[in-house]
């Protein structure tokens, strides 16, 4: 077990150090970490993030520029607990980017609707920011975001900023305490979206599996064809490279073929 071994640059399992530039608290258990970055990223891709000694986990890039990227991380276990103890100036270890991400060309000049449940907002946040800055590249844009309660509201500062430029419909499952907006489950509000010109509409649905399932049913009922619906899937992942096998569904490896899929292509697949 010599420590003298060479460090190979071509080893896809080695990660690079990235300094934490800023930390934003989103909720009790979710923080956004802004890190220095020179990754070339697409909307909706993810990184394998680690603190050596505590494990590695796939985390979506929740926003990025040429200089930095953001990760919005929920505290659920060994690694994510440790990450939440880090401070500005500390380091995280990153490799990637992985996955296909959202191809903006599929939405250009269309009416784009994004329906996101809870942390499902993280993988689409960079796309929303791009749309916000380039509204002329879409014919209409609208976001529907559902949260359990006021305590789980994410990206509050962004939502207020976005609302100056396009509609963001917020739904709260249990209480009425997000800015007095009190509306029940996300699925109950899909009919209120701008769906007049369905032929020219593309819909992105991201969130926990039950939210995705029932939201898609609602969109289908309103006449949105399956091939105009896009989803992003989460599965257990241990490599991000198409090797470890944990993320496979039928002949799809979610880490390399996904996580973004056109719903028509995956509606039949079974775990």
């Amino acid at each position: 077990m010599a420590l003298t071994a060479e460090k190979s640059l071509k080893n896809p399992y080695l990660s690079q150090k990235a300094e934490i530039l800023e930390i934003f608290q989103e909720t009790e258990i979710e923080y956004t970490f802004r890190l220095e970055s020179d990754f070339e990223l697409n909307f909706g891709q993810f990184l394998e993030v680690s603190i050596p000694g505590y494990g590695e986990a796939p985390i979506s890039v929740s926003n990025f520029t040429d200089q930095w990227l953001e990760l919005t991380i929920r505290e659920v276990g060994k690694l994510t607990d440790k990450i939440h103890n880090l401070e500005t100036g500390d380091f995280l270890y990153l490799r990637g980017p992985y996955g296909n991400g959202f191809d903006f060309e599929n939405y250009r000049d269309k009416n784009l609707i994004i329906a996101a449940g809870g942390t499902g907002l993280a993988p689409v946040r960079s796309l929303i920011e791009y749309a916000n800055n380039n509204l002329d590249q879409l014919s209409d844009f609208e976001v529907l975001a559902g949260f359990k309660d006021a305590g789980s509201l994410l990206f509050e500062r962004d939502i207020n900023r976005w609302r100056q430029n396009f509609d963001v419909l917020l739904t709260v499952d249990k209480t009425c305490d997000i800015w007095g907006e009190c509306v029940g489950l996300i699925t109950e509000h899909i009919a209120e979206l701008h769906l007049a010109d369905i032929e020219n509409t593309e819909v992105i649905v991201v969130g926990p599996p039950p939210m995705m399932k029932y939201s898609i049913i609602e969109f289908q009922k309103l006449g949105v064809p399956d091939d105009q619906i896009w989803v992003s899937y989460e599965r257990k992942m241990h490599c991000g490279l198409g090797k470890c096998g944990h993320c496979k569904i039928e002949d799809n490896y979610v880490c390399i073929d996904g996580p973004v899929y056109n719903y028509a292509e995956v509606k039949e697949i079974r775990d």
Partner: protein
Amino acid sequence: MGFNFSKNEFNQLLESLDQEYQIYAPVRKKKKDSFSANDLITYDLVKSLEEIELTAKSKYSAKEIVFPIRETLFHFVEGEQFMASDTDDKYIIFLRPCDRNAFKRLDKIFLENGPEEDIYYKRLREKVKFFVIECTTGFDSCFCVSMDSNTVESRDYSAFLRFEEDGVSCEVNDQDLAAEFEAQAKEIDFEPEFIRKNKIEVNLPDRDKLTNEVFEHQLWTEYSQRCIACGRCNTSCPTCSCFTVKDVLYDENKKSGERFRRWAGCHIDGFTEMAGGHNFREEYGDRMRYKTMHKIYDFGERFDFDMCVGCGRCDDVCPEYISFSKCINKLSTIIEEGV
């Protein structure tokens, strides 16, 4: 080029190859099997013909030589990562055609699937030479002929060996080794032979007839009652390639430790478990269905052959007597007769 060796001459060849290579072959270990007083047939280093077990199937395949059960990926100290070192060892592996073909499956996943090659697999794999053991009779649970893995093309081996009463006949296909073979033996004409019929045959179901009902069929519910999710079918399979990555911390202050990978199996609890405890395949029967589909459909959709090579090891090791070949045939019947 074909050669014939007496047993003595063959041992001299092994002795000379042993100078440069670690030679792995199936061996018999007396009363070493975990659950009985039976002998364990497994892979180990050999130096002579007499040590090689040629009459029984090995319980485990040779895959762990190239894809170790536990493998260090890198060490880390104070924020630096150091790729685990590798030895200069070169390997010769004695194996049957099905097991040689199993490496083709592993090559697909580790070297071709996804954007990058798996450097840990690659650096071991490049140092392996295959010596294929002629196999014309097979064993009771084998179905390699149905899986089209009973034959091996000559470019896929360094040597092909027929073990006879009084010696070994073989073909050599590898410039690196030709001189050593020539030095020990006399030249003959040699034509490899392969098994053409197993006791067990499976009918591979037609992929176009797969429907959603097949996924829901009670066939799988029955396996939920029988399978105990021990994962022995995964560990004994020469084509199972899944792994889990973990860290160990040796010293918290110095932040030193290692990241390693370890074999994982789709039958075993936790394989699909996500944060929050959600499992994508809770039922054991669903895991059997997932493995079956992977071995005879899904892999073949991405690459040009099926994953299962029909070695029958999963049948041999299952404590619940679940037979994979029977499962494939039941599935075929269900699909052919329409659900």
